[in-house]
């Protein structure tokens, strides 16, 4: 993970619901706490990052939400405005409203135009060295390829023009494994693991961007060691004694632990499968799978982000052993 924080640009993706935004915020927090000037950027303007960071709302202009930690929310229109100002030197900024609206339509239909504006903005921040690390709360696993692959698509599609020239320096940043990486967040469940595995195996081929790490979120703790497990397994024999001593809910207490443990084991199997699929990829994907424990706190927000950040900081560079 030391090397993870040494990247310039880190895209955080994951299947919907796995905790992508909280994890992106937590990585940014770890980076900021380690003394790196960090920018975290939400791409879909849904406001999830703002609530993860415990601020009211985020805007295209970054704000410092904690020491060393800056946050912004991407806006295609603002990115276009800035782009035109910086590169095309269009003076009539005030009148760009309707133009941007029209552009939005083109962008919606023309592949990659919208994406390249937002990806371009982030690459620009990298190029200008405004931060040590930029963490992006990016699109979900289903759409991330379209997002970070946009410069490649444009380079393939557009033969001449300013955009074409612009894509080359972006690709130089994006395709450099020492500068840009993708963190895939997953939960130890079948579907998120399957999608993560599929994404990781095609990511570099389709976008030129390299995967950096898998973050397994909400990993359940091991409750019992081997000797204790032997006791748990035969505890039903003593259940009457337990009920007699602590009341009729003793069975449910035992069931809750078994239930949690069964979920943990299933989850560990999925993560083990992910590891072997990544190892079996061609070329093998030797990226680490690091784990963040289940926090048993389902309300998101600043506290959860800090707890995830603690977990991440602990788990740095530790690979999850496959469960067997």
């Amino acid at each position, binding site marked *: 993970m030391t090397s993870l924080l040494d990247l310039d640009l880190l895209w955080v993706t994951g299947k*919907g*619901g796995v905790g992508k935004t909280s994890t992106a915020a937590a990585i940014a927090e770890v980076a900021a706490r380690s003394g790196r000037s960090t920018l975290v950027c939400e791409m879909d303007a849904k406001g999830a990052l703002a609530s993860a960071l415990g601020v009211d709302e985020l805007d295209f202009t970054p704000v410092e939400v904690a020491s060393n930690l800056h946050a912004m929310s991407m806006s295609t229109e603002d990115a276009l405005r800035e*782009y035109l100002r910086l590169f*095309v030197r269009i003076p009539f900024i005030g009148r760009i409203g309707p*133009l941007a609206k*029209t*552009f939005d*339509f*083109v962008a919606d*239909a*023309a*592949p*990659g135009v919208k994406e390249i504006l937002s990806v371009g903005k982030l690459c620009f921040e990298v190029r200008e060295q405004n931060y040590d690390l930029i963490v992006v709360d990016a699109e*979900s696993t*289903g759409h991330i390829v*379209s997002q970070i692959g946009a410069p490649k698509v444009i380079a393939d*599609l*557009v033969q*001449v*023009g*300013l*955009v074409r020239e612009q894509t080359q320096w972006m690709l130089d940043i994006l395709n450099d494994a020492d500068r840009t990486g993708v963190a895939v967040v997953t939960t130890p*469940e*079948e*579907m*998120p693991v399957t*999608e993560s595995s599929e994404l990781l195996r095609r990511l570099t081929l389709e976008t030129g961007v390299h995967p950096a790490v898998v973050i397994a979120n909400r990993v359940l703790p091991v409750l*019992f060691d081997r000797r*204790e497990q*032997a*006791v*748990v397994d*035969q*505890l039903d*024999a*003593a259940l009457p*004694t*337990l*009920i007699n*001593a*602590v*009341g009729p*809910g*003793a069975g*449910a*207490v*035992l*069931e*809750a*632990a078994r*239930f*949690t443990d*069964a*979920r943990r084991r*299933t989850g560990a199997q999925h993560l083990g499968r992910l590891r072997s699929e990544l190892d079996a990829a061609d070329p093998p994907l030797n990226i680490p799978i690091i784990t963040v424990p289940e926090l*048993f*706190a*389902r*309300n*998101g927000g600043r506290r959860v982000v800090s707890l995830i950040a603690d977990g991440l900081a602990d788990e740095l560079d530790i690979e999850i052993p496959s469960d067997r």
Partner: protein
Amino acid sequence: MSEVDNLLASREMVLVAGSGGVGKTTIAAAMGIAAAQRQKGKILVLTVDPAKRLATALGLDEVGNTPVRIEPAMFTEAGVAVRGELWVAMLDTKAGWDELIRRHAPDAQVRDAVLANPLYQNITSRFVHSHDYLAMEQLHDLHATGDFDLVIVDTPPSRNALSILDAPSRMIEFFGSRLLRWLTVPYRSRLFTVASKPFYQVADRVLGSRFLQDIADFFVLFQAMEKGFVKRARAVEALLADARTAFVVVTTLETAPSHEAKFLAQALLNRGMTLGAMVVNRVLPARLAGNDAIASANALLEARPELADAVAEQLDDASPVTVAAVLAQLAERFDDVALVASRETERRAELATFATTMLDVPWLTGDIHDIAGLGKLAEYLRVDSVNG
């Protein structure tokens, strides 16, 4: 009959919606099985998820745009008795678009030109909303053929579930937009149109004239198909609000999915569409958070030292020290489960204000990846829970 059987028997189309990762695909497949168990006739489950999950769940290697029937033998093997036929199809966005172009193109020349246009090829595979629209389009198509008695649609994972509902009107809007009119005025004369001049100057410098020309060419072709597209989009829109159509919103009781579910339920209500049921997936068994259990967990923590000896005596080869550790762990860890369960109970109560039918599916410890598992899920959907 249970609520879910009523729903599946009274509608011709059921759209399964909800945020990503809540188990929509699995629930849609289980509903297909539930319908096939109780109804004669042909039931189709249409999945639009690019991850090809339904195929795996149903033991099919490859499912495409053309519906495939699940072999009756597979149900027999899985011990699931069915009366109807269950068919599965998966939306192939690219093939779906090609099909649309073939249908709406006024002549072979336009058709071939569109299909060969490099932009078209990119747009159809990358246009983020194209999944949404195509799902609706194909639903309409399948319904119109009358081949199926019931079509269950697993809607695409969207950033915003609403985009499915809005997909047809967005398509209509697109054809009516000034942008399309601008783009489709012949390129040369357009440069002299005062209104579009600033736009083209900028667009020209930013995108390059060649790319712009490609875009323009594409939209000129596309506009030739306006009539067919708009008519179709209107029909799809009407179908969504039709009395024969119902939505099923799937959610878990986690923060983000339940928020999305509430939002979606409200949007359906506002649009006069029918919310047939809300499926709450991965619910913790209620008894795990009951008062009895909480009391016992607390008592266990207190009584543990004395209990350990008594319990150890009844077990094989167990030291009182290990037993004491186990009992402590049981009592302490119970709080985690109880905390989650009580939060979930609260959220479920909030969701219940939106739907008259709530279907709870417990958190199953094993993953569902075969017909037997889906059959079990169908049974859970049949357990009517008391609302409120």
